[in-house]
């Protein structure tokens, strides 16, 4: 049996009508069970045959349950508190729930467990048929519905998707797909016709009166699926949003009326409005005191439809919106008439959905191609957050979006366009010390952010003392160390995407990283070279003890150096600043290493996190201001030999999976999380699936101050019930124990417990030291399908090297890319789409843009099929 998509496998769940044979067989079955289980069995038997059960099916099912289930779910054992020998004691509701869960487990191949004897495909189908006969359609629907959600994507058989056996014509179900938070913001900006800097500004800070009604789930993996739907919560938020947006539309329009009355904002503190906002149809209504004409009302409706939905109102829509305006006009003034119409259009569900139903005639497979207008939006939203550009709209209007070649032309054009979608990857990262990366196609970076899940680092809080006080938790005005490393992960992802060669292999296996990346290399070299010159000139002077004298002597020289800024005011004397520089230079040039090209006493300086990459630290300003307090031991401290050219190689680290952002995101507040890390690899790279932790499991790692975390994890997950899932996670998660929960490399694990305290620190300059035990980073890889790669691994680096070489891993990433661009799980009928995308990647030398082009010109992307109930 394979785990195909719902449509291919739901049909076997046919209802079978019981015949007269039933009564005879019931007696037979009862006898078998009575012989095996005694008195309890009689109750089972009557439940094995329902009014819709084929008696033969019942007999088969009875045997199958007896052979494969009863040992663990019968009189002797009741694993998971499930037993099939006392069905008669269950209420009808519990009975249906149990069989429904059983059906799911059998369908998904979760039961029987892997280490137990397995039924044949035929037997599994028989069991499913029997279970179906006891359940109504709702159970099948429930199963089919589940298959639409991200967590179930990997249930579709990987080999079948890629071995070419499936030749079905691909399609996507006709649908409405909720817009993403980013698209929502763009749509609101469109209502206000914002452009250029006004638009950029809003992207940075958002609208004062608009709350984004959409929240992406926080788990790693593709999150923007078509499964979302508008509900009460969205409506409540949108009602307030619509009121604010419509209010601003009207306010801005009134401001633009020539010689119009003076207008004040409703809220004096919220005085933003779109500049030069002059929809003529609105002006016409607002600038007259009499009742508007029907033509004016119609023009206003079309205008609001255009601003909000990018189309004109249909005749039917015109009729109802006209009714509303007339009706409001009976009790309100022209402003109320216009405001309420604008509000009503903003509350249309269409404003919040992407519409993809297809248009025109169905082909022989029952599919229709996206209408040109739908195609224009689908293409544009695949590549960015904005709606179609002028050229794409034009192509749609002129009938030039109807063939694969048309799609390819537009997709390639927009991928080559450096400006249309240009923007920051994640404005939330902007803070006092960091700015989010700007790139031509931020949405491509967002795919890899979703896939790797490293932005979740911002949800982890650490005790800074455990990292020498150099870890800063997110707080007001800064996203702290998590934000900094997320941004640096964005930088390297963007760098690989922009180079567009062997993208997957590099993201997994490259040893290149950005850390701080303070300025372009050229500028950095110029600064450091000038500093070095100053150091060489002054190093033998008594700059520390007679700084005033030295400064006076070299004042003109120092003033000529642009990279040196000596403050001269009431608080600061230039000779003191000179001394700060020289102390800083002594720490670096004096030891033959390169300093960062900014000084630590620069306003807003927050560069403390190099240690999470396993690099030496960078100095703080306090060190130089309080030089006299720095102990002799600390004065000799080694700092990072800064890399002016970035990205640069960091030894013993490979790709995103050893990037601190990923490691922190996949850690606990206080510990690593080998299980989460292992699960990620199993599900995202090996196309495997791990069921959710059963609610009956108390998933706690035992406390023991004298053992490593690995030991304790292994112990608690070794129980037979746990092992069946953890066998997929632990061997690929434990190798990451070579990194601690901050991302620092380590060979020893500090046993952070009062029992193991060796040295107590003050928590500011000195920190607690604990006894340690060596870490064991060994593990094992299985599931790549390549005997050259599967096998024992010595550590995470070894594991990553193997993963980066695996075809299976590459295909798994392609599957996730498919989900990102299609907004849904793959079905078996998408097999050709996936194979083509994989081939495109390989043939192009690892171009992700080639994957995008392939996906966006596939049948899966272009065709829709209307699926009935």
């Amino acid at each position, binding site marked *: 049996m394979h785990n195909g998509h719902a449509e291919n496998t739901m049909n076997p769940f046919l209802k079978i009508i019981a015949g007269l044979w039933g009564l005879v067989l019931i007696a037979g079955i009862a006898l078998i069970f009575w012989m095996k289980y005694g008195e309890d069995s009689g109750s089972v038997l009557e439940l094995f045959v329902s009014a819709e059960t084929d008696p033969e099916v019942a007999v088969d099912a009875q045997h199958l349950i007896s052979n494969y289930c009863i040992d663990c779910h019968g009189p002797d054992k009741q694993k998971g508190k499930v037993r099939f020998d006392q069905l008669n004691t269950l209420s009808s509701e519990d009975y249906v729930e149990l069989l429904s869960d059983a059906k799911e487990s059998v369908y998904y191949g979760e039961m029987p467990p892997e280490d137990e004897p397995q039924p044949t495909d035929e037997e599994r189908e028989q069991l499913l048929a029997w279970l179906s006969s006891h359940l109504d359609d709702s159970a099948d629907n429930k199963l089919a*519905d589940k298959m*639409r959600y991200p967590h179930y994507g990997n249930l579709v058989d990987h080999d079948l998707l890629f071995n070419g056996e499936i030749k079905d014509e691909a399609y996507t*179900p*006709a649908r*409405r797909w909720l817009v993403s938070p980013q698209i929502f913001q763009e749509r609101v900006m469109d209502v206000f016709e914002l452009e250029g800097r006004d638009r950029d500004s809003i992207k940075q800070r958002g609208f*004062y009166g608009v*709350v*984004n009604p959409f*929240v992406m789930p926080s788990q790693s993996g593709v999150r923007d699926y078509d499964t979302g*739907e*508008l*509900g*009460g*919560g*969205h*409506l*409540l*938020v949108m*009602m*307030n949003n619509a*009121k604010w947006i419509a209010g601003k539309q009207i306010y801005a329009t009134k401001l633009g009326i020539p010689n119009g009355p003076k207008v004040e904002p409703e*809220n*004096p*503190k*919220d005085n933003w409005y779109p500049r030069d906002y002059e929809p003529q149809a609105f002006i016409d209504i607002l600038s007259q005191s009499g009742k508007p004409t029907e033509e004016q009302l119609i023009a206003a409706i079309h205008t609001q439809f255009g601003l909000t939905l990018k189309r004109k109102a249909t005749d*039917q*829509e015109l009729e*109802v*919106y006209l*009714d*509303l305006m007339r009706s*409001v006009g009976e*009790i*309100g003034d022209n402003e*109320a008439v216009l405001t*309420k119409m604008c*509000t*009503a259009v903003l*509350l*249309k*569900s269409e404003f919040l959905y992407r519409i993809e139903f297809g248009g025109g005639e169905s082909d022989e497979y029952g599919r229709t191609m996206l209408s040109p207008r739908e195609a224009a939006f689908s293409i544009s939203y695949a590549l960015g957050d904005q709606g179609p550009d002028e050229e794409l709209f034009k192509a749609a209007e002129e009938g030039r979006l109807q063939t694969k070649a048309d799609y390819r032309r537009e997709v390639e054009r927009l991928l080559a366009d450096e400006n249309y979608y240009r923007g920051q990857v994640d404005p*939330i990262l902007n803070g006092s010390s960091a700015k989010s990366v700007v790139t031509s196609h931020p949405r491509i970076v967002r795919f890899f952010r979703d896939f790797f899940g490293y932005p979740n680092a911002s*949800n982890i*809080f*650490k*005790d800074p003392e*455990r990292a020498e006080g150099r870890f800063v938790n*997110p*707080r*007001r005005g800064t996203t702290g160390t998590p934000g900094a490393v997320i941004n640096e992960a964005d930088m390297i992802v963007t760098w690989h995407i922009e180079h567009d060669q062997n993208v997957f292999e590099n993201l997994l296996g490259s040893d290149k990283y950005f850390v701080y990346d303070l300025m372009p290399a050229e500028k950095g070299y110029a600064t450091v070279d000038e500093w070095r010159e100053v150091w060489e000139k002054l190093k033998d002077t008594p700059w520390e003890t007679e700084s005033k004298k030295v400064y006076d002597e070299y004042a003109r020289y120092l003033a000529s150096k642009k990279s040196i800024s000596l403050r001269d005011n009431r608080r600061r004397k230039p000779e003191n600043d000179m001394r700060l520089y020289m102390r800083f230079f002594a720490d670096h040039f004096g030891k033959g290493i390169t300093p960062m090209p900014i000084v630590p006493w620069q306003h807003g300086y927050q560069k403390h996190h190099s240690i999470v990459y396993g690099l030496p630290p960078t100095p703080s300003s306090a060190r130089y201001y309080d030089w006299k307090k720095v102990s002799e031991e600390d004065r000799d401290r080694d700092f990072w030999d800064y890399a002016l050219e970035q990205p640069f190689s960091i030894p013993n680290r490979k790709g995103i999976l050893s990037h601190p952002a990923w490691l922190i995101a996949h850690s606990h*507040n*206080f510990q690593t999380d080998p299980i989460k890390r292992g699960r990620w690899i199993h599900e995202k790279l090996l196309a495997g699936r791990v069921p959710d932790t059963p609610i009956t499991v108390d998933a706690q790692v035992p*406390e023991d101050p004298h053992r490593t975390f690995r030991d304790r994890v292994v112990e608690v997950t070794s129980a037979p019930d746990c092992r069946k899932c953890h066998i997929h996670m632990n061997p690929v998660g434990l190798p990451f124990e070579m990194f601690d929960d901050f991302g620092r490399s380590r060979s020893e694990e500090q046993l*952070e*417990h*009062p029992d193991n305290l060796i040295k107590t620190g003050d928590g500011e300059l000195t920190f607690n030291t604990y006894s340690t035990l060596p870490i064991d980073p060994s593990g094992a890889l299985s599931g790549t399908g390549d005997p050259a790669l599967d096998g024992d691994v010595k550590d995470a680096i070894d594991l990553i090297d193997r993963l980066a070489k695996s075809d299976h891993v590459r295909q798994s990433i392609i599957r996730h890319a498919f989900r990102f661009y299609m907004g849904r799980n793959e079905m078996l009928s998408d097999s050709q789409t996936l194979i083509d995308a994989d081939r495109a990647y390989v043939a192009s030398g690892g171009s992700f843009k080639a994957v995008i082009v392939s996906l966006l010109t596939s049948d899966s992307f272009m065709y829709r099929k*209307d*699926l*009935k*109930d």
Partner: protein
Amino acid sequence: MNTRRNFLKTALLGVGAGSMWPRDLFANAPAALAGAGKVPTRFVFIHKGNGLMPHTLVPPSFSKDLMDKEKNKQAYSVDLDGHSLPDFMAPLAGHHKNLTILQGLSGKMCTTGHHTWCSSLGAYKANEQISSIKWATVDFELAKLYPSPFEHIELACFPSGGGNSRGNIEGIEKGFSARGPQQPNYAFGSPKVAMQELFKSVSNDKAAQLMYEMDRKVLELVSGRERVISEMLDGIEHQKALNYTDSVDSILVRNRKIEEMSDIIRQHIPKLPDAYINSDTLSTLDRQDGLNEIMISTLISGMTNVATFTVDELGTPYTGLPKLETEQVNLHEIGHNKGYGGLDAPAIRDTVCHQHMNLVNKLVSRLKATPEINGEGNMFDNTVVMYFPDNGETHHSVGTEWPFVVLAGDNTPLKIGRRYIRLPKHGVEGHKTLGNWYTTLLNAYGNPIDHFGAMDVELDKFGIHQKGPIEQFLA
């Protein structure tokens, strides 16, 4: 697949401020409104800025032994009978038997310091970014248990400065509660706007009536159009469209129900002095009193069972304080020990807190004076009022303490009445956090959640158990 039932569940959480009132839905309307049903429990969260200093809550009549324990932060519990309350708490003297002074909770999982945003109600580190809102705050979780037409009402004397400005303190702004992840709630900043929005269905003001009518027309149009769309679709897409239509319809139904409540709402509509409605003459104390009156009305009329009231925040400018009528007191400066008008900072803190106690007294007394909807006892019997700081123990707080003054009616299942309780201090075995306290509340009233709130990494560090309710309060 979401269903109409799911919508009802989510929409019930959605009570914030807004001029077009979306809110529930009467699936479980209060008995007085629906005609029958269980008596709800009411919860009122009143929080203040600038910290609440634990030592100010210690009854002065405590023995030296108790005072020593207090000083050393040793755990103990004392019956409040026979003890006098601190002077500033004098207004609560008449509610002595319902009173609990709860000391020793910590809130290091919260943002601390000057401002804390949704931290004190959510038990997580929040900031001004909506993205920092991790989950619904505890007041909204409790509101789920006792649905009401408005579900939840938030009122706030907003800060106008001090790093957490809400801009327009007279209007409807993002509050300190959250409806869900990344979903801020909205609060009413002035008695005027709260009156307009909450009572517009019974308003005598012609313009307000017309606006209400026009909003209804808009919703009816949206409902009609979306139903047309749903009828054109099949399968999942049909259900999706229907869900939105049902959402709109539910609000229309809710509004109709509120209209049906108009008699009872009119009966309890606050009668505020004109000065409270005019922002030019409104002192901070008037604002507090006006918002308090409105809150009392919404609770008594059954419009909501849960209310959150920000009596002040660090950036709230204070005017109208007794003996300081001519001063505009800046709480931040009080936090830095600056005096005003001849009073030192501690005395002004006492004056401010005394004013808060007046508000609490008014709330409790009014609920006590109102018969419960089933005729058994009074409304306060089924009410829990909590007064606490939004940021912990002091002006520059670090969250080691988070004092609570609790007033609970006789029917509360919480075993804390009439006690002064000091819990084990932070880092000591048995210590309890804000999360434990909120978990206790939720568990006691029917939400079996294992733990509400984020973990304190400092406690986490040494494996100190910090999940679950405070068992002794549930015993």
